[in-house]
């Protein structure tokens, strides 16, 4: 009875009661990130922390699509200016009152009473020098080679370190100073810096909206070196963001706490006020709370990450209300989403389902260097590619293999990007077997037989994915082409052998995907530009598509601002791709996320940089619903107790009767 009473008094709530009414967001992580160094961290788990701990010079507008850059730590989004020395420069002017999170590293170098310091332009220069330093191993190093002297600064550092061991032993900020800094990063006083390039490069600004270029305190890098019991900088981020990392236990939990000294609390920067402008349907669809508009950010006091290794327990805790938002587990997809909408059971719980196409594209590509499917075949091959494109039903593919998660692609540009036209219907991406068969007849491959030689046409679909699941997906495409009489054989090798095939150019048809670094059409259209052809430069143009008109349009378009003229050029480029068919565009990946009724401003961001400063919570509603969903069911305990009494009581009665 005592045990029953104790158990009945227990609750399954894993959080302290004191936090019940606080604006604390609960979420989960599977594996701790390998690094939180902003110059290196490139995984989505790491970005959940780095995108909130580190502020950036520029930010993306939370509500506007296509994505738009707004000023973050700087006063305005810079425009290209021509310097006296003829170079193109982007000038960044810092806001007042930006300070690093209070940390012991500042005490070490500036005295006991200085636990923080103001951010200066030189902190941006230091961050850029770290990106250029090959020893830091930043994944975006090569993306900034357009900055004058960026690459040679890194090379200079390497040679100086090799020649002089004492130099290599110095703290990195001293090494950078002795190496003379980067010629293309010019610091003017404490509040202004310039990025100088030989040619305009509009895309370079996108890198200043990512945590890689966040201002970095040299004190933090020097102090957190992993020696004498100190942590590594990779585990101890010191930033300026709206949240600071208050606890970091890789095995159990991370905590982000609101930064009370955040610059946004003292200024009216666009990134510190909840935006009033945005997509028209935001408020009506419930992904934006009208009451939040115009309010200062952030809303949350804390963000708690708990470790959940398995997806099913994580999803169950979400259903119990102990996580505020969650991904849909594949196994439960059909019971959560029905007919592309939230199931009635989930809708009754007040849940919200948000879908957002990510800046990705998945496609089947043809090797345009191949004599049969490529450019050498001229009009014949073009019609063959057009026919094969007409046979592939991307919508059906998504339904079978991704639970419908994904948007069938009509072009290479995903939704949310400038140049994407939601009304556009690619004539070769509407499944039509009759038209495809007619095109094959025109191409001289009627029913898969080469009219010239009389022999059946045999093609190969090359892949480096040997899993049974992937084979099913490839078989789906092969079956579709088979309906046209095309004999496409699957050539499965391990990934290394496949890479070797690609290097040799010994492939015909392949499938690939691309995840954008930044949301600009240039970052997709460059995948088919001839100088990026794999056969020429080991570039990402695996289709080896080379078209002079496309290249010319690309060069005109790449550095243009998002104007109508740019849109016109993009349309022309897409027309070339539509006709030439180097790719069969399959789909854009779609992220489905579930959130509870008490979570506000859950508009999906699409990019992998979660911004908790816009999220708000109604803790009272959460506590009420949680209590209702987790009310203990005690009757089985009482039934068990009764059963024990019924079974044991006769035994006791017999025992006493016999003793007497």
């Amino acid at each position, binding site marked *: 009875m005592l045990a029953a009473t104790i158990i009945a008094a227990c609750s399954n709530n894993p959080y302290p009661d004191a936090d019940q009414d606080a604006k604390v967001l609960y979420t989960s992580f599977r594996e701790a990130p390998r690094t939180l160094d902003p110059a290196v961290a490139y995984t989505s788990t790491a970005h959940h922390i780095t995108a909130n701990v580190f502020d950036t010079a520029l930010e993306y507008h939370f509500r506007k699509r296509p994505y738009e850059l707004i000023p973050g730590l700087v006063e305005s989004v810079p425009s290209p200016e021509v310097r006296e020395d003829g170079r193109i420069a982007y000038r960044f002017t810092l806001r007042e009152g930006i300070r690093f999170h209070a940390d012991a590293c500042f005490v070490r170098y500036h005295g006991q009473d200085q636990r923080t310091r103001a951010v200066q332009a030189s902190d941006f220069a230091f961050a850029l020098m770290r990106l250029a330093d090959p020893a830091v191993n930043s994944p975006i190093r090569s993306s900034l080679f357009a900055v004058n002297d960026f690459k040679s600064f890194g090379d200079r550092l390497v040679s100086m370190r090799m020649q002089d061991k004492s130099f290599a032993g110095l703290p990195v900020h001293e090494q950078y100073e002795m190496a003379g800094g980067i010629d293309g990063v010019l610091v003017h006083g404490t509040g202004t810096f310039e990025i100088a390039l030989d040619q305009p490069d509009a895309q370079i600004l996108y890198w200043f909206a990512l945590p890689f270029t966040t201002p970095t305190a040299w004190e933090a890098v020097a102090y957190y070196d992993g020696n004498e019991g100190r942590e590594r900088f990779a585990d101890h981020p010191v930033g300026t963001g709206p949240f600071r990392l208050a606890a970091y236990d890789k095995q159990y939990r991370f905590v982000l706490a609101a930064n009370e000294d955040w610059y946004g609390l003292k200024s009216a920067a666009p990134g510190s006020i909840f935006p009033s402008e945005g997509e028209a349907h935001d408020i009506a669809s419930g992904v934006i709370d009208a009451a939040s508009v115009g309010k200062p950010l952030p809303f949350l006091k804390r963000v708690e990450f708990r470790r959940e290794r398995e997806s099913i327990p994580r999803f169950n805790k979400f259903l119990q209300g102990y996580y505020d938002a969650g991904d849909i587990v594949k196994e439960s*997809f059909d019971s959560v989403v029905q007919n592309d909408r939230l199931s009635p059971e989930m809708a009754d719980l007040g849940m919200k389902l948000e879908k957002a196409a990510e800046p990705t594209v998945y496609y089947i590509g043809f090797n345009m260097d191949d004599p049969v499917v490529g450019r050498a075949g001229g009009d014949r091959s073009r019609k063959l590619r057009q026919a094969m494109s007409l046979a592939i039903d991307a919508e059906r593919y998504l339904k079978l293999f991704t639970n419908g998660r994904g948007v069938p692609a009509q072009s290479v540009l995903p939704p949310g990007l400038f140049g994407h036209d939601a009304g556009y219907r690619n004539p070769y991406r509407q499944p039509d077997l009759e038209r495809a068969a007619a095109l094959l007849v025109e191409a001289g491959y009627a029913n898969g037989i080469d009219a010239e030689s009389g022999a*059946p046409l045999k093609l190969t679909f090359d892949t480096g994915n040997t899993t*049974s699941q992937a084979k099913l997906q490839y078989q789906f495409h092969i079956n579709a082409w088979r309906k046209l009489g095309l004999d496409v054989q699957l050539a*499965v090798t391990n990934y290394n052998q496949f890479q070797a095939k690609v290097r040799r150019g010994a492939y015909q048809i392949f499938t690939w995907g691309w995840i954008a670094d930044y949301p600009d059409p240039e970052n997709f259209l460059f995948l088919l530009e001839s100088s990026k052809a794999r056969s020429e430069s080991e570039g990402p143009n695996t289709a080896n598509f080379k078209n002079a008109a496309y290249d010319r349009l690309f060069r005109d378009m790449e550095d243009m601002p998002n104007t109508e003229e740019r849109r016109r050029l993009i349309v022309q480029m897409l027309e070339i791709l539509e006709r030439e068919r180097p790719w069969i565009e399959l789909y854009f990946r779609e992220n489905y996320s579930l959130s509870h009724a008490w979570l506000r401003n859950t508009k999906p961001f699409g990019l992998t940089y979660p911004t908790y400063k816009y999220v708000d919570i109604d803790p009272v509603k959460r506590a009420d619903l949680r209590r209702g969903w987790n009310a203990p069911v005690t009757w089985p305990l009482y039934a068990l107790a009764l059963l024990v009494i019924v079974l044991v009581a006769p035994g006791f009665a017999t025992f006493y009767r016999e003793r007497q």
Partner: protein
Amino acid sequence: MHWISNLIVVLLVMGGAGLAQRLRHNRLWRHAAAELWARRRISIVVLGLFVLVALLDSVAWISSGDDSGDRVAASQPRSVIDRVFVPESFVETSYSAPFAEKGFYEDTALKHPGQHVLGTDILGNDVLYRTLKGVRVALLIGGLTSLIVIPIALFFGVSAGYFGGRIDDVVFFVMTVLASIPSLLLLIALIIVLGTGTLQVCIALGVTGWVSFCRISRGETLKLREADFVQAARALGTPERRIITKHILPNLAHLVVITFALLFTGLVLSETVLSYLGIGLDNSWGQMIDQARNELSRTPIIWWNIAGASTALFVLVLSVNLIADAVRDILDPRTLRERQ
């Protein structure tokens, strides 16, 4: 290539008939076969059916004027099983449950309502057809690999056991080295080097699988070498080669039969593990199970896809194991003595 397969089938059938004819004249084998039939009738029938299906799936030809409507299929050799099922047209758009009238995803009527005994898979292929196609692969894996393993193991085992000395040292060293390498890792490495064809997988399984039988045959040969009849043959000046072929090998025959049966089931199961790791064979049960495994954890559950392959695998392995058990009892002189 299909005529090679057809020729092998003819040779196998003729070889099997010839062997049966030969064994009929040997009293020991005739009695053993009769006892085995008496003890394991059902298992033998089941195994016979599996062998029949595999043989029917191995006889293939290209027929002119094929009217299946599928140009690619008509141009390729098709086996008896393919011709019975006609998979190009006996297909649905996606999943359907056994004997279902409607599809699992769409509420529309199937093209072949109520005809898919084991339902259809994600691409709409008939699961019974895929299961039957897996029989040939399973028997090929088990049979071909055993044909590689047993001669190698016998050669090295008998040589080491009979001649001893340096030969024994070398063979034993090789066996010890191979036994100390985790077999799965060695298998994966070999398949990565050799490729993933049927012959390559059989060779890889053979290289990693001969050690245990080699050890048994070596031990048995060591014992036989000291037996009176071998000593007598040697005293009479019989050549070594003749002693081995006439006195040692016949006395290892029961071990070969038992090992073959046990090895066979182990190899069929090994292929399943390889498929799980993405390096198995196409059309195998392992691949079917691997493709279907995610469907078991989803709601609503799709069970029929995994049921076909795993039931066939279970029945084959069980029947072979039951037969092997009986063969061991019948042929092993020790159990024979115990029974008498």
